[in-house]
């Protein structure tokens, strides 16, 4: 057994690292965009990998000074964890995603941000790695403490996100390594040590009580809204779902894509933002008999065609569509929203502003992910309302890598199944250039009709166009002649143009809103024709419907079209068409190179000197890659199953890490070169195959279970996998400690390198090939590890 104080310190340090990482992901999502969450993970992993290399180079010196170096690293880690966020927010360092492609100085700022956040992770990993080397024969216990700490850190991080503002998190997380430092310290408190400890504590206290002010990108919705006269943030709530802020200004008006024939006043409304991005306007329940302002939008069409009986508003946000539906006296409106903070605000602080919309007798609120609700629900509805696709003026692909399970072909099939025989579903999209969001929405609708065996999709689909939006209405039964006539009358009244309508004449398509060309009409017709498949292949952007396997509705970039797009739109404009996926790709490439330079190149030198075999390299690399792939896929799959993304993340992360910790502990009973140890990776690969082809698909059928049953099922699912996956690393380290101790830092570094690149790589594979492939490749990685361990163990 390693001394308890070191196991405890490592547990605290690992908990801090994970809590800090979660906090950092949130901070990046607030100040920049969701994509930079990948950067947080990559930087963390890079710190771990680079620390391994550093250890390999300076191992002897560090080991000689272990008693002093270990607590010092913990103090420094605490101090830098507390300090780097404030520094990264300094005007001289703060970068802006949008300006990255406009101002090259931003690239230096990005690099400076990378380096700043790298430091605490590097220091933490160095401390952990150093302890692993120092107590390599008792690695099982230390690795258990490390994984248990990480698992607890995930839960602590999520808890802190619910209790404190995101800016306070780094300081709070930094308390843990400080505590670890005090526990691990065994020497005399000389003046130098006292100063070090006091300064570290002072920095942490400062970060907690004077947290840095997080400045969102000036191009984020909230920044623009806060420029309005007399604007102010009325309230803020932090939760693991993000930072929710309500903003008011006398100039903040509401009336998205209103008909130009509307001549009334536009109401001033407060607006809700999540991580600086628009969620919705805070709208009141309509007064009886009141004409709702959204009746002057294209989205009002279904209400013109039918009186709504039972309405389902999915991903309802602040309830804009719910209020609109209530103006038409429905029997019931089911409001589904995943973010509990929004519901909580509507029930309490915003109850007056919303005229108690959520308490309206016709409203039934469901706090659940919209897709999970659809999968579990057995009711049918007269009208299903989907949220608006895209945003005004487009997003340049900033949501490209956000999993959107509500926007997949399977989700639309679920919607179809939930419609009454005469029921309708509606979805609107802002028009964008080049056309992509409305085309993918239409393609998804058409494929559902195709899958349902509808021979004439044109009879079940209506689309109308305002000056800036397209609204699609899908009906389970064919549209009647009266409904077609009502659509025409509505268009005339509002100066809208029909795009799809049974019996439509081509001259009708541009009576009020003339487009610069007729591409939209050609594309629409192609999607409804037997040539659809050919159109997908030929169109420069990816408008093929998203699927549960690849739920990236907003990912439009096709690599093979890049040369054609560059010719068509100008090479310098490409980043502005689809920036999101490019950022992840650039992150991957950067990290691939930086990690190689910082981790692998020096290690090859050390490796050569110490004659570490290539098979050992393959073994540690494969298990690094495989572990991260499985972790990422579990988070994604559990999100859909549980309907609460944050619980899914907590369960997948903490559950897997704690179970791995237990596995690591148990592995100390095995001989490092035993037959069991050699065959273990192959057993994991086999288990992964079972999960990929049997367990995960079967999970979709169990979405309707109660929460307790679901949690029990997930524990059963995660525990054995995590337990087994926690064993190969400590077994490998013990093998090296017996055969070639000098190779341990090297193994640590290679494992770190593959963990670094696997985060972004898993996402890229999921986008290109689908989730199953990520799992298959994880299985392949463990198979490779098994083969490597077989070869290593041969005399």
């Amino acid at each position: 057994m390693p001394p308890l104080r070191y196991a405890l310190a490592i547990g605290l340090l690992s908990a801090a690292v994970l809590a800090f990482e979660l906090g950092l992901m949130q901070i990046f999502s607030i100040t920049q965009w969701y994509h930079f969450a990948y950067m947080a993970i990559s930087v963390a992993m890079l710190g771990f990998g680079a620390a391994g290399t550093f250890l390999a180079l300076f191992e002897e010196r560090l080991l000689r000074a272990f008693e002093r170096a270990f607590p010092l690293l913990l103090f420094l880690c605490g101090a830098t964890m507390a300090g780097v966020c404030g520094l990264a927010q300094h005007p001289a360092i703060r970068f802006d995603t949008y300006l990255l492609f406009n101002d090259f100085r931003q690239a230096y700022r990005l690099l400076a941000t990378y380096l700043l956040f790298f430091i605490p992770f590097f220091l933490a990993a160095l401390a952990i790695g150093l302890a692993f080397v120092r107590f390599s024969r008792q690695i099982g216990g230390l690795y258990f403490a490390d994984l248990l700490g990480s698992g607890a850190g995930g839960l602590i991080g999520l808890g802190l996100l619910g209790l404190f503002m995101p800016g306070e998190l780094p300081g709070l997380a930094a308390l843990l390594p400080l505590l670890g430092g005090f526990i691990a310290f065994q020497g005399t408190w000389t003046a130098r040590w006292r100063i070090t400890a006091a300064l570290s504590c002072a920095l942490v206290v400062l970060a907690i009580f004077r947290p840095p002010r997080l400045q969102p990108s000036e191009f984020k919705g909230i920044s623009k809204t806060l420029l309005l006269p007399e604007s102010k943030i009325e309230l803020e709530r932090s939760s693991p779902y993000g930072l929710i802020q309500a903003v008011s200004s006398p100039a903040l008006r509401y009336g998205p894509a209103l008909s130009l024939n509307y001549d009334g006043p536009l109401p001033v409304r407060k607006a809700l933002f999540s991580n600086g991005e628009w969620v919705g306007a805070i709208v009141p329940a309509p007064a009886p008999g009141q004409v709702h302002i959204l009746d002057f939008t294209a989205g009002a069409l279904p209400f013109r065609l039918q009186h709504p009986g039972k309405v389902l508003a999915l991903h309802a946000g602040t309830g804009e569509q719910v209020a609109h539906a209530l103006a038409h006296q429905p029997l019931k409106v089911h409001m589904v929203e995943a973010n509990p903070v929004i519901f909580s605000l509507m029930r309490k602080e915003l109850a007056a502003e919303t005229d108690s919309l959520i308490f309206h007798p016709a409203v039934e609120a469901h706090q659940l992910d919209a897709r999970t609700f659809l999968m579990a629900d057995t009711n049918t509805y007269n009208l299903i309302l989907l949220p608006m696709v895209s945003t005004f003026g487009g997003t340049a692909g900033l949501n490209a890598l956000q999993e959107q399970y509500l926007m997949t072909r399977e989700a639309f099939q679920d919607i179809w199944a939930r419609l009454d025989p005469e029921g309708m579903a509606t979805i609107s999209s802002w028009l964008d250039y080049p056309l992509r969001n409305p085309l993918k929405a239409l393609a998804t609708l058409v494929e559902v009709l195709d899958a349902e065996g509808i021979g004439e999709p044109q009879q079940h689909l209506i689309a109308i166009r305002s000056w800036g939006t397209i609204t699609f209405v899908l009906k389970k039964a064919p549209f009647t002649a009266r409904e077609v006539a009502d659509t025409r009358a509505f268009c005339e009244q509002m100066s809208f143009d029909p795009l799809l309508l049974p019996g439509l004449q081509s001259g009708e398509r541009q009576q009020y809103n003339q487009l610069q060309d007729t591409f939209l009409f050609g594309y629409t017709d192609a999607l409804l024709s037997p040539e659809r498949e050919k159109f997908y292949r030929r169109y420069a952007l990816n408008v093929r419907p998203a699927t549960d396997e690849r739920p990236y509705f907003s990912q439009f970039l096709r690599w093979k079209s890049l040369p054609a797009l560059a010719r068509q739109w100008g090479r310098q404009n490409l980043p502005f068409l689809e920036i999101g996926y490019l950022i992840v790709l650039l992150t991957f490439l950067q990290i691939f190179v930086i990690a190689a330079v910082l981790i692998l190149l020096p290690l090859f030198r050390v490796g050569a000197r110490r004659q570490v075999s290539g098979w050992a390299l393959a073994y540690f690399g494969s298990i690094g890659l495989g572990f991260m792939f499985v972790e990422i896929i579990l988070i994604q799959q559990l999100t859909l199953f549980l309907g609460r993304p944050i619980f899914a993340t907590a369960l997948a992360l903490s559950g897997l890490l704690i179970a791995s910790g237990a596995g690591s502990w148990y592995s100390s009973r095995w001989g490092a070169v035993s037959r069991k140890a050699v065959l273990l990776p192959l057993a994991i690969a086999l288990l992964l195959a079972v999960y990929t082809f049997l367990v995960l698909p079967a999970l979709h059928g169990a979405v309707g279970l109660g929460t307790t049953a679901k949690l029990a099922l997930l524990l059963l699912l995660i525990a054995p996998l995590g337990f087994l996956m926690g064993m190969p690393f400590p077994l490998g380290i013990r093998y090296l400690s017996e055969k070639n101790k000098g190779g341990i830092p090297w193994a640590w570094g290679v494992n770190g390198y593959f963990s670094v690149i696997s985060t972004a790589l898993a996402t890229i594979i999921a986008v290109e090939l689908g989730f199953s492939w990520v799992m298959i490749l994880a299985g392949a990685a463990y198979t490779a590890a098994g083969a490597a361990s077989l070869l290593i163990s041969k005399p």
Partner: protein
Amino acid sequence: MKRKIYHMAIAAGLLLTASPLLFSQDAYQKKREEMVQYQIAGRGITDKATLNAMRTVPRHLFVPENLRSRAYDDGPLPIGYGQTISQPYIVGYMTEAIRPKPDFRVLEIGTGSGYQAAVLAKIVDKAYTIEIVEELAGQATKRLQKLGYDNVQVRFGDGYHGWKEHAPYDAIVVTAAAEFIPPPLVEQLKPGGIMIIPIGSPFMVQTLMLVEKKGGQIKTKSLFPVRFVPFTRE
């Protein structure tokens, strides 16, 4: 002798101090000419009044000092507060699109740096411009006054309401669009008047849209997507 040297030194100093200014003014003039030739006229803007105005208005005085060297670049530039000065081509295109005449009364929503208003002021009788960011409105007012654009009036306020006192307008230029087109603006447009609006963020693909008020009907016409250079679609 000493006095002579002293005077010569002063003269040399003055010359040295002034020379960068003189040279840079020349350089800016040259850059402006090139901008009009390659970015504006070269891309199909033919309206003489627009071209002359863009040849005359010193764009470099409308951008932050640290970006002056890039003032005539073929793109938008940040001017602070999350706002930009539009790409020269967009300014030229929007100006030409409203078919400006000397007797026009034009309203601009979104003054920003004041550059678009200055270009309009070179052509039309009266230009009114409203800016919602107080700091930008103050800066633009001072700048336009200093540069002698007497026929431009700047107001700090919410462009939603338009500027009723000077309505109706022959044309309205909206430099940053919202999710809606304010009904008061449509109302303040003369019968036969034109409004032009870019849809989308200046750092992304924008579509310019014309709103025309004709015979009691309001119709829109999307022009074409633009960013840095006009897109040429196959």
